[in-house]
């Protein structure tokens, strides 16, 4: 979208901020009859933090999976730094996109340090033979991986727990560890799927700082979140996904004032209420919506099946397709 290449570069070697890093165009993902992601375009520029919001079941995670090669999109293309991304997750990571998962997916029986070192996998080269022979190259590479991993653990504040098992970490620290592990692959773009889900307000604020720090290191961030305050504080732009379609995209003011978003997602205009209240409101609105949707279904079965697949702008559209 923005092709403003004239801004000054962030650092030596780094691409100029503002150049398109990731470009998704017309991404569509269908599961049988269900269109989870419908013709979504999104561009992430270098040095940006982009938010992706939408009610549950809107297709945000599915969109992430399409970007990272976990799913092969039914239609559409994704390019990273101008090259079309291969549809293999490990190649996507190699290309420079790292991610975390909505439901934390650490390696539970490995230590914290080992988790991060595994993240270095695609940036190190030592093969089986080198491991068996244990030459100087092997030792050096191991030491380097370890050092870099410790750096990253210090960066997210987990260096004191390097030898703990990942499964024994408290929840918030598991999320941080997942971020450290993702950063270990030296990504140019980091995808975070609900990084503050289940965190308390302090932890959320720390995570916010962490994401800014990551951006300052020259890594662009695309983040899915439910916490509105978090998203609007953090993001340069925010895209709203509803029922698989991108409703609007823009800065916080644009998104907050868009009445379709308000209708579809927020229920009431955003006024800086804390996240917990937000969630409660959304839940209440959706419960109401579910009730509202059930009524016409029982009352008059006039347009039962077609209505569900058609995009709607009523509050009922938040209903999870499940």
């Amino acid at each position, binding site marked *: 979208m923005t092709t403003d290449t004239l801004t000054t570069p962030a650092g030596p070697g780094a691409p100029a901020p503002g150049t398109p890093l990731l470009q998704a165009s017309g991404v569509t993902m269908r599961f049988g009859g269900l269109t989870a992601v419908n013709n979504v375009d999104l561009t992430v520029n270098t040095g940006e933090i982009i938010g992706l919001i939408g009610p549950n079941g809107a297709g945000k995670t599915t969109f992430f999976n399409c970007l990272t090669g976990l799913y092969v999109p039914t239609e559409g293309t994704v390019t990273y730094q101008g090259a079309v991304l291969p549809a293999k*997750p490990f190649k996507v990571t190699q290309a420079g996109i790292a991610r975390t998962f909505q439901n934390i997916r650490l390696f539970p029986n490995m230590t914290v340090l080992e988790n991060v070192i595994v993240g270095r996998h695609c940036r190190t080269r030592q093969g089986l033979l080198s491991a068996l022979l244990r030459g100087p190259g092997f030792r050096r590479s191991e030491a380097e991986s370890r050092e870099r991993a410790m750096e990253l653990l210090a960066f997210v504040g987990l260096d004191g727990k390097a030898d703990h098992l990942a499964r024994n970490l408290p929840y918030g620290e598991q999320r941080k560890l997942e971020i450290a592990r993702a950063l270990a692959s030296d990504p140019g773009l980091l995808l975070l799927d609900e990084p503050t889900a289940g965190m308390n307000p302090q932890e959320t604020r720390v995570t916010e700082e962490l994401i800014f720090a990551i951006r300052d290191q020259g890594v662009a961030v695309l983040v899915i979140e439910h916490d509105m305050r978090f998203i609007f504080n953090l993001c340069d732009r925010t895209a709203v996904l509803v029922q698989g379609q991108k409703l609007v995209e823009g800065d916080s003011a644009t998104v907050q004032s868009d009445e379709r978003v308000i209708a579809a997602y927020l229920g009431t205009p955003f006024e800086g209420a804390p996240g917990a209240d937000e969630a409660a409101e959304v839940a209440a609105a959706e419960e109401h919506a579910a009730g509202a949707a059930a009524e016409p279904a029982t009352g008059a079965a006039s347009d039962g099946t077609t209505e569900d697949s058609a995009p709607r702008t009523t509050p009922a559209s938040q209903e999870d397709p499940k």
Partner: protein
Amino acid sequence: MTTTHPGATERTPVVPLPAGAARAATAVGALATAASTLLAWTWTPEFPGNLTISGYPGGLQVLTLTASLLTLLMTAASYHLPGLRWLLPTGSDNAVALLAAGTFATTWYTLVAISAELGGIVNLEPGGYAAGAASLLTLLAALGLPLDRRTRESLRVKVVPPSRDGGSGHAAALPSRLTYPGRLAAFLAARAYLAVSPRLSFTKRPLKAPAHLPAWGEILVVIAAYAAALGIFTYGIDTSYAELFAGFLLTAVFGVIALAQAGVLARLSAITAHQRPIAVAAAFAAAAAFPFTQSDDQYATIGVNILVFATVALGLNVVVGLAGLLDLGYVAFLGVGAYAAALVSGSPSSRFSSIHFPFWAAVLTGAAAAMVFGVLIGAPTLRLRGDYLAIVTLGFGEIFRIAVLNMDGSSGPQLTGGPNGIHDIPDLKILGFDFGQPHQLGGLSLGRFANYYLLMLLFTVFVVTVFSRASNSRIGRAWIAIREDETAALAMGINGFRLKLLAFALGAGLAGLAGTVQAHVTFTVVPEQYQFAGPVPPNSAFLLAAVVLGGMGTISGPLIGASLLYLIPAKFQFLQNYQLLGFGVALVLLMRFRPEGLIPNRRQQLEYHDDTLPGDTGGPTAATPEKDVVGLTQAGA
């Protein structure tokens, strides 16, 4: 239906006795049991081991004597006697109780075996009664000691009796289809379990700070430990009748658990970790010393078979333990290696009888052939996950056996000799050393199997080295990552398919390596050696069991697992028909009581590191927050 809260402990006796009296009675009982082994337990030498002689112990009495003396020693240590502190670093009386139980079990097993085999308890001499009474007294007294146990309050019981109308508060946990008697039975079973389990579940205690040992002291300890291990192992292999082996197992199992509760094993493993190179050398030396302890070749055969089995199990551990790929047809790779070596061995029944490779070339051929098979089988199947992979590998394992069976020249091309296999495989001659001939070495005679034992030991050492180096590397970590969470591993840039194929190929190659020696040891290779499950290990089921029983992802686990799984059926010939049944029962029990295997993984040990963390109960730590996520998702639904 029930929730337990482990962690809280209590120190209470099972049998209500004053602690001082119980301790004294334990010591007296142990001494009396030891003395009773000097008496005659039965009147006729018909019972194996000759327990009729007064004055010195024979057969099973030796085991009772050992166990009771150990009990006595441990009881003395529990009095904090100065020279014995090393024996009880945890200071827990559980160790005493377990040794007393071991003495009791061994003694009573002997008495029951005598009565059963000779037809009635009339066959017991007064000495037998004395032994039985003394060991029972010891056990009861030891159960009067303050044992570390889980508190009963900590087992928070939430078992609510069902009501007839089905409106039980906890009905959700039970299938609603269950009728009232069914629910009542479930309720009673749960109550019975809860009544017993706190009595049985021991707890862990931290070790007291060790007395500082100088380096030479640690080295001596390591050497002594491995010498003791060699002694115990040799005793087990050399047991000449089933009763003695059963007694040996009873004593050994209780002894090992007791030493674990005493903290000796933890202390020992800390010292071994500290003196790693010495420990490795001592382990190797102990293993190499085994054939020298044997006067004839009878038990060296068992030794070499155990080594083959254990080496292959360790190879399987790469596939199962590290990469987490369930391979149920692994024995086929052993077969490929063995057949390849047999074909190029110059055996007259080989298809290529004119070809006689030197051994090193045969080894490379066998390993390479197995590796090629590994890749051929792995390439199409490794795209499957979990159960599907297990089923397909099971199929391929059988396909190998049946294909080999049919390549006899009539049903298919002549390659493997069909059901007759390849026989008369010549003995190896390496640098003029004929493995088929006995050799004198420093006044000791080494027979054919002892020669092969030592050769196989070199291969085992090689496989151990490969395993340990591979697992502690970028590749090994990637395998473990795939085992832990394949999707996350892919997202970390790990080429899942390629690494799984590598694990498969390496595992196959290691099995092939072992196969080349096995072909020479057994003279013949026939398809029946390479079944999914059969009476003689190694077969696929037993290999997998050795890995799981011993401890996945560890080195010593599969070695110990394989030794046990080989020895138990070999010693209990009468079990032959029930072998698979017993094997299944053993696995079920193991999965219930010790899912991590006999030797827990270093990673699983780390779990005990973090006792201080809230909510660290070994279960999902993230349980509460996970619920939050679910809650959020459901709120949106």
